[in-house]
C-alpha cells in the first residue's frame, strides 16, 4: 500500500485546475527519503510551498527559489535508484509471454498487486495466473515484472513488450485509461458482458417481448393512454364504461345531444372545460392545491429509468437494426471499484463504475440510443428498489411528523401549564416523561426543551433537501466515458436523470 501512494508521484499529468492539489513538490518526497535513509543530505532542508510565481521578475531571489527546487528534484532522481526506480528484489516477478493469445502466464504471484490483476488458471492446480496484456504492461511499467518469451525463454525488452501488446490505437487508449486509473488506486477488471449480465439481459428481453405484446394491438391514439388504464381495462366496469362512450360517439343524434348538454353545463359553469383543448379550463374549474394543478398539466411523456420494461420499446426497436455496426464502439470496457480492502476477484461486488473509452478524434458524443442501450444492459437495480426506497422515505417522514406533532402537543401543554404558577414542577414532570420515552423520542424532546422543535416548515425543508439530493445524484446506474484526445484523458460521468419522474410539491 505504501508503494501505491508513492506511485502517484510519477504521474506526470498535472490537471491544470488541480495544480494546487496535485502539484509535485519534490520537497515532500525528499523529506520521506531523509527520514528513511541517510543518503539524501541535500534534500534535508524542507521547503514549504509558497505563492506561485507567474512570470520571471528578474530577481536573484526568484532564480534561487527555482534553482533550489530543481536541484531537489535532480537529487532525488539520482539518489533513489534503488528506492523508486528499477526492480525491487523482494517483489521481483517473472512471467512468460504467449504471443498467440496476447497474454502472459505468471507462475508464483506474490505481492500486493494481484487483488484485481490476473485470472486464475482453472485447469491447472499450480499457482498460476493469466495476465491480460494491459495488466502485463502495467506491472512491467512500474518495475515489478520481467517478461520472457514463451517460445525461447529470451527476455523481452520494454519496447518490444509495448509493440507486441498494443495492436491498435484503441488498445493504446485503453491502456492509457487503465494505467491512469490503476495509478490512482482503483481496482479494475475487464468487463465481461456475457458472464455478468446474461441473466439480466434475458430478463430484459423477456420483459421487452411482453411489452411488445401489450402494445401491438393498439393504434396510435390509444398507446398514448397511460399503461395504468390499459391494465385496468380488464376491469368489468371500465370495459362497460368504454363501450357506452363508444356507443354515444358512434350515434350522431346521441352525440349531438351529449354535446349540447355539455355546452349547457359549461355555460352554467357546472362543468369545466378540458385542460388542453381550450384555454378556458382554469377559468372554469377550481383547484384545491397546486399539486392538483400540476397533475392536470401533465402532458409530455418522459423516460423513467425505474420502469425500464415499459418505456423502452421505442429505443430498442430503433437501435437493434442500426446499432450492430457500432456495437464495438460503445461497449463497456472495464469495471471499476473504488479502493477497498475486502475485494475478491473471484467474487467481485457490484462495480462502482463502468467505463467506455472513446477517442475524440474518431467521433462525437454518443447518441441517446447508444447511451440508453448501455444503461439498459447494465442496470443491475431491481425494479422494486424504487418503491421500497419510496416507502422507506415515507416511513421516515411519517415518523418525523409524528414526533413533531408530539412536540407541539408538549409545547402547548407546557405553555398552558406555564400560565399556572407551578411551571418548575411541570418541567420536572416533562423531564421524567422524557426519560421514560424511547431513545428516539427523548432526543427530540430534549431538543424541544432547547427550543429546537421541528416545525412543519422545517420538516418540509428537510424533505425538500433530501429530494434535491436524490435528483442531483440521478438514477443509480453510473456510466463513465473516458474521452482520449491524443493521449490526454477526460472523464465524463453520465447518469439517467430522474427529475421528470417527480412533481415538486411546494405547498
Amino acid at each position: 500500500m505504501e508503494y501505491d501512494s508513492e506511485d502517484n508521484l510519477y504521474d506526470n499529468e498535472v490537471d491544470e485546475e488541480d495544480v494546487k492539489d496535485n502539484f509535485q513538490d519534490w520537497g515532500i518526497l525528499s523529506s520521506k527519503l531523509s527520514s528513511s535513509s541517510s543518503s539524501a543530505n541535500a534534500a534535508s532542508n524542507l521547503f514549504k510551498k509558497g505563492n506561485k510565481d507567474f512570470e520571471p521578475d528578474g530577481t536573484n531571489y526568484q532564480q534561487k527559489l527555482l534553482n533550489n527546487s530543481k536541484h531537489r528534484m535532480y537529487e532525488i532522481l539520482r539518489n533513489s535508484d534503488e528506492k523508486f526506480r528499477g526492480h525491487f528484489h523482494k517483489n521481483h516477478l517473472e512471467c512468460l509471454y504467449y504471443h498467440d493469445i496476447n497474454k502472459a502466464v505468471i507462475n508464483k504471484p506474490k505481492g500486493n498487486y494481484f487483488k484485481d490483476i490476473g485470472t486464475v488458471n482453472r485447469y491447472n492446480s499450480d499457482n498460476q495466473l493469466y495476465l491480460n496484456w494491459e495488466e502485463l504492461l502495467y506491472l512491467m511499467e512500474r518495475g515489478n515484472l520481467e517478461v520472457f518469451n514463451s517460445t525461447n525463454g529470451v527476455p523481452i525488452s520494454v519496447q518490444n513488450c509495448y509493440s507486441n501488446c498494443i495492436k491498435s490505437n484503441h488498445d493504446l487508449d485503453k491502456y492509457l485509461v487503465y494505467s491512469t486509473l490503476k495509478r490512482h488506486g482503483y481496482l479494475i477488471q475487464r468487463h465481461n458482458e456475457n458472464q455478468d449480465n446474461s441473466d439480466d439481459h434475458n430478463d430484459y428481453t423477456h420483459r421487452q417481448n411482453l411489452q411488445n405484446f401489450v402494445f401491438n394491438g393498439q393504434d396510435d391514439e390509444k398507446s398514448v393512454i397511460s399503461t395504468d388504464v390499459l391494465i385496468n381495462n380488464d376491469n368489468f366496469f371500465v370495459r362497460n364504461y368504454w363501450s357506452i362512450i363508444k356507443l354515444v360517439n358512434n350515434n350522431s343524434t346521441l352525440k349531438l345531444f351529449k354535446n349540447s348538454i355539455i355546452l349547457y353545463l359549461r355555460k352554467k359553469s357546472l362543468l369545466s372545460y378540458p385542460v388542453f383543448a381550450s384555454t378556458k379550463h382554469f377559468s372554469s374549474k377550481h383547484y384545491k392545491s397546486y399539486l392538483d394543478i400540476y397533475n392536470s398539466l401533465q402532458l409530455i411523456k418522459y423516460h423513467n429509468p425505474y420502469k425500464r420494461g415499459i418505456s423502452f420499446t421505442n429505443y430498442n426497436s430503433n437501435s437493434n437494426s442500426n446499432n450492430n455496426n457500432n456495437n464495438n464502439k460503445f461497449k463497456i470496457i472495464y469495471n471499476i471499484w473504488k479502493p477497498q480492502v475486502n475485494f475478491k476477484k473471484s467474487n467481485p461486488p457490484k462495480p462502482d463504475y463502468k467505463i467506455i473509452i472513446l477517442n475524440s478524434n474518431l467521433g462525437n458524443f454518443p447518441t441517446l440510443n447508444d447511451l440508453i442501450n448501455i444503461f439498459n444492459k447494465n442496470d443491475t437495480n431491481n425494479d422494486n428498489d424504487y418503491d421500497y426506497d419510496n416507502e422507506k422515505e415515507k416511513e421516515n417522514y411519517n415518523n418525523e411528523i409524528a414526533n413533531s406533532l408530539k412536540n407541539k402537543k408538549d409545547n402547548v401543554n407546557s405553555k398552558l401549564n406555564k400560565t399556572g404558577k407551578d411551571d418548575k414542577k411541570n418541567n420536572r414532570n416533562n423531564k421524567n416523561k422524557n426519560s421514560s420515552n424511547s431513545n428516539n423520542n427523548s432526543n427530540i424532546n430534549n431538543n424541544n426543551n432547547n427550543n429546537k422543535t421541528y416545525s412543519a416548515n422545517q420538516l418540509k425543508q428537510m424533505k425538500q433537501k433530501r429530494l434535491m439530493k436524490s435528483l442531483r445524484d440521478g438514477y443509480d446506474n453510473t456510466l463513465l466515458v473516458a474521452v482520449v484526445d491524443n493521449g490526454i484523458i477526460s472523464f465524463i460521468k453520465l447518469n439517467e436523470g430522474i427529475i421528470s419522474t417527480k412533481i415538486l410539491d411546494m405547498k
Partner: protein
Amino acid sequence: MSKRRRNLNQLYPNPLPINVYQFPVLFPHNLISWISYAYSYYRFVTASPKLTKSDVLIVEGNIHQVKDEQDQKRLWCNGFFGKGILSRSEPTWHERTLVRLGLKENAAYNSNNKNRNKSKNRDKKNLASEDITKLRRNERNLYKKQREKLEQEEVQLRKQLDLARESVDERKVVQAKLDKLKELKLKVSDEQKTLIKEINEEIKELRPEDKKLINAKEHDVNQLEYLQLMPVETFFLSFSLGCVNVYEKKEIFLKLLSTTELFLKSVKSLKADDKFIMKYVVYHNYRSKGWCVRSGIKFGCDFLIYNKGPPFSHAEFCLIVLPNYVDESKNRHVSKKFSLLSGINRVIGGVRKSMILVYVNIPEDEQFNRVINNRNENDLIDFEKLFKLYKVTEIMYSRWQPSRNRD
C-alpha cells in the same frame, strides 16, 4: 434566514398565475364553521374561479411585450415569467428611477432587499439589487488594484534583497509583507463604506436626459420598461393556463391571436424537429413538474430550472435541449462534439449547477403531419395530441476526476 424565507413566501405566494381555492378552516365542534365550509364547497363546485388575464403584445421581431404594470407584476410574482428589459430580471426600473430622482423614499420593491441585507450591512438597506451588484464590482476592482500594488512592492523588496543578502533583512522583509497584507484588508473594508456614501450622493444628481423622463403633472416618471416573455413562456401561459390574451399589431388595430395562430407564428418551420416545439416540450415538461423554468443563455444552455424561483435559491440544473430522431444516422450527424459539451459543462460546473442533456424524441414526419393537418371545425390544431408524440429523456452529464472520487 427563516424570516427572510417567510417574507419571500409572502411576496411570491403562487408558483403559477392561477389562484388556488381557499377553504375556510373547519372546527368540528363549531356549527357555524360547518355552514361556511359547506357554502364554500358549494362555491367550489359551482362558481367559476376568477382568473385575471394579462395582455401580451407581439411586435415586430417576435418580441413578446407585457406593458401593463399590474400584468408585469402578476406574471413576475406568480411564477417568475419574463424579464424586465431595463432590469436584471424583475422589472424594477420604474421604482429605481423614482428612488434615484428622489421622488420616492423607500420603494416597495426594496422591502425584500432590506431584510436580506440587514444582517450583512445596514448601510446597504436602501439599495436595489442592481446597485448592490455595482457595489460589489467596485469592491472587487479595488481589491484587485490593491493586490497588484502589493505584488509590485513584493518585487521591489526582492530586488532590495538581492542587494543586501543578509538573513536578518530577510526576516524583516517577511514581516513587512505580513503587515502589508493586514493593512490591505483594513483598507478594503474602509473603502467600502466610502463607496456606499458615493452611491447615495450620486442619487441626488440629475442627468440631462432625466427631464424627458419626468411627468410633471402626475408627479411621476414615464414607464419605459416592459416585461419581455420568451415565446415558449407566452405559449405556455396561453395554451396551458389560458391566463393571457395575446395580441398582434395589424396596422393600427390589435388582433387577438388564438393558440394555433400563436403557435404558427412562433415556429420557424412546420417540421417535427422545429426548435420552438422541442423547447416548448421541455419547457412544459418541467413547468408541469413544478419547476420554475427560465432562459439559460447566461450559462450557455437552453434553460435553467429553479426550485421555486430566482429570489428563493440559485438554479439547480441547466438544461440543454437536443433532438433524438428515429433515424439513427441523423442522430450521429447532429451529435455534439466532446469539446463543446465539456466547455459548457465547465462553465456550468463553475457556478455549481448540474448539467442535463434533455433529449426530445422527434416523431416521424408522417405522424407529425397527420396531427398538424387534422384540424377541427375552427381550424385549430389538437396540441394535446401533438405534444403527446414527443418524449423527453434526461441524461445527467458531469465531469469525473479519478483523484477526487476514490472514497
